[in-house]
């Protein structure tokens, strides 16, 4: 197994002692098949126990180890060392306040996610005895891709609009709203549109497309947002030009 000495430049910030963030460099002997998260774990275990960062599954499922690796939003568990040079710079996710070291404050995203009601709001309440809600493979296909979102927030770190306009509901939350709107069992679109069709909703998106480029699960939030724009535009014309048409 080949081993390489990597200079890992990590952003450090302790709100209790530091007036501003600084970089600290660790020399880490990395195996070729390691990911950046392995290197961070090596630092934590062997070099500096005070380093703080979030992680859990180490297999791109939990979405907690999102961070900037050489300036790009990445899951640390999916960023392979062999794809980088001998110097790797690791910073907390862009566009979020820093809580400590690589840990960001994510309350803003959590609140936005909750505001779009990302859960099934059944069209009709039916008792369990009435049986299951059936769905064809074609119906499933209209939203399956959007169910793969793991809430890692890489898309928010990549989105220049979110950086400029913090009120923007953002890619993942709108893509998830779209996921439930597209679900044949769901009847909650009108409730979600109150948030989605607002100015801070989908209309802050300028279709830069960076969200889809960085998404580790290939959700394509940018595509979802364009579909939401088309649907919201049709809504608007219906509401204003054909008010007699019942939804």
């Amino acid at each position, binding site marked *: 197994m080949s081993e390489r000495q990597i200079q890992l430049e990590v952003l450090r910030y302790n709100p209790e002692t530091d007036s501003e963030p600084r970089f600290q460099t660790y020399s880490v002997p990395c195996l070729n098949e390691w990911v950046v998260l392995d290197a961070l774990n090596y630092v934590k275990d062997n070099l500096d126990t005070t380093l703080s960062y979030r992680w859990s599954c180490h297999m791109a499922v939990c979405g907690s180890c999102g961070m900037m690796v050489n300036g790009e939003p990445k899951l640390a568990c999916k960023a392979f060392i062999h794809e980088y040079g001998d110097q790797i710079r690791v910073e907390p996710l862009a566009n979020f306040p820093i809580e400590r070291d690589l840990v960001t404050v994510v309350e803003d995203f959590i609140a936005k996610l909750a505001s779009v009601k990302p859960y099934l709001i059944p069209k009709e309440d039916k008792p369990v005895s009435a049986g299951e809600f059936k769905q064809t493979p074609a119906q499933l296909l209209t939203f399956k891709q959007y169910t793969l979102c793991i809430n890692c927030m890489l898309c928010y770190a990549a989105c220049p*609009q979110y950086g400029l306009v913090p009120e923007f509901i953002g890619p993942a939350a709108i893509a998830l709203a779209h996921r439930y709107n597209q679900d044949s069992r769901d009847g909650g679109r009108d409730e979600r549109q109150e948030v989605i069709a607002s100015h*801070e909703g989908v*209309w802050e998106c300028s279709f830069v497309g960076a969200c889809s480029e960085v998404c580790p699960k290939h959700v394509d939030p940018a595509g979802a947002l364009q579909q939401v724009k*088309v649907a919201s*535009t049709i*809504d608007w014309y219906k509401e204003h030009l054909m008010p007699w048409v019942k939804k």
Partner: protein
Amino acid sequence: MAKSNKPIFWGPFAAGGTITAFVTPVLVLLTLFAALGFVPSLLTYEHLHAFAANWLGKLVIFGVILLSLWHAAHRLRVTVHDLGVRADGMVAIVVYFIASLGTVATLFYLLRI
């Protein structure tokens, strides 16, 4: 949160985007061919003049140019904002003014045919 009226602007913007993606490259290519002296009989001056003289032809030409200009102006405004220029009001006035100028000129020349 109140629903946005953005669809009024976004509808023509999206239509313009579709035209810019599918029609504009063809027009650029045909114009290039014409510039190089290769003009298919269907695209001779007489044929195109006759097309522009018909009210339906006028409408098509006007629609293509209006929507393309509107799309380009709006796209440029948003891109400039993404690049970090914070004078959105000023940028909006400049780009929409240029687009309006082009639209009015199109109308003027079409009505003269």
